[in-house]
């Protein structure tokens, strides 16, 4: 069967898998941003904590994704088979780029600007919210963009632990030795990644301060 016939015949199923995939990515990214950005803001002035946090996040990044999914299955509460485990693994992967870019963005601001802010009587909270954070925003967004693209890719493997998504087609296609079935998963995943890259890249450029 040619890929195009397969696409047409299974369009409803492909669309459903794409939406399931997208929802995995979106949920995982929301959680990763909610953890990574505040954590980055918290550790920026605490070098010891920063090294620990970045160290742990880097370790997760080095674990092959299939292995990480496997490791999580036996863990109570967060583990098991299905979406929840997959989301936990995706969050762990997304954390490093977000955390690192938040930290780098917050710490690479012109010292003269920070000195002026302090000298004009801004409190530490005001400096963080009104100066450091807005100036770091483009950096932080670049981290979110990288993390999103990684997550879209890694999420295909989540099908191996029964989380659904576009990986379902890829695994099925490998088992059936059918290029058409593999492409039914791979092409939408690639399109998702490209669209996410373009949209987030556009947002990043809009937020960049000359």
């Amino acid at each position, binding site marked *: 069967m040619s890929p195009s016939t397969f696409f047409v015949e299974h369009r409803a199923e492909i669309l459903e898998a794409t939406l399931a995939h997208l929802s995995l990515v979106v949920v995982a990214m929301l959680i990763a941003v909610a953890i990574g950005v505040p954590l980055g803001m918290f550790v920026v002035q605490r070098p010891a904590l920063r090294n620990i946090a970045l160290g742990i996040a880097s370790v997760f990044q080095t674990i092959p994704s299939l292995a990480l999914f496997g490791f999580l299955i036996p863990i109570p509460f967060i583990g098991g088979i299905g979406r929840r485990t997959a989301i936990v693994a995706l969050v762990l992967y997304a954390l490093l780029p977000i955390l690192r870019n938040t930290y780098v963005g917050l710490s690479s601001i*012109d010292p*003269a*600007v920070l*000195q*002026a*802010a*302090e*000298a*004009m*009587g*801004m*409190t530490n909270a*005001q400096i963080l919210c009104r*100066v450091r954070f*807005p*100036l770091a925003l483009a950096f932080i967004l670049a981290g979110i963009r990288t993390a999103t693209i990684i997550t879209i890719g890694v999420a295909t493997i989540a099908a191996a632990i029964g989380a659904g998504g576009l990986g379902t087609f890829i695994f099925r296609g490998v088992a059936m030795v059918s290029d058409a079935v593999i492409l039914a998963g791979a092409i939408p995943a690639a399109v998702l990644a490209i669209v996410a890259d373009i949209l987030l890249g556009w947002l990043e450029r809009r937020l960049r*301060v*000359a």
Partner: protein
Amino acid sequence: MNSKTAPEIQATIQFRNVTYSIDRSHSGSQSRAIVDDISFDVSHGETLILLGRSGSGKTTLLRLINNLVVPTGGQVVVEGRATSQWDPIRLRRNIGYVIQEAGLFPHFTVAQNVGLVPTLEGWDSTRISSRTAEMLLLVGLDPGEFAARRPHELSGGQRQRVGVARALAADPPILLMDEPFGALDPVTRAELQREFSALARRLGKTIVFVTHDVREALLLGSRIVLLQSGRIVATAPPDQFLQIEQPEVRAFAASLVPVPGASA
């Protein structure tokens, strides 16, 4: 002026045996004094120049005034109260600060930069915008043309003017200036120096101005304090400064020798 705690003199800023040293005991060497037992007063409305070479302690001295640096010995008294007794935020909002390269916020417009302290102080928006426009006019920038621009759309001289406007916006009685014109080309620098000295006289602010440029010191100061290795080596009004027979003063005077062929 409140004079409750400073009955004898009306000094706006007083340094009383101030020492600031960096503790380097962990690296095996002795602690090093950046500022070494310094005492002097800055009277109301004067422009005091802190002159010295790089590393003479002049910038540290300036930063001791608004509590960005805390003395390790002695005390700095601002408007009758030791800086350790001030809430640092209140103290700093009471003191304008201008630095080299201006330190403008790149994500703010010119108007937002100038209006920062009034905004922090909770002024209402109409008062902030009229004050901002007034300040821009004061430093020679047309508010209509410049208010909405970002700092990167300005020349170095314009940025520095905005820096001065920002420091003056909340009408602080004291102004600290750390080589504010140091990064400008000579022509723009001379222009800003002339305008600034007129402005300083008109506004009646108490100004402490750090520079390594003796020409600038002579032009702008009502009094010059010369620093060397964290100590004061000479104090004099500009018209008497160059007559002092002290090696460091002579060294600075020598830097004034005109270039052969120059008419002045």
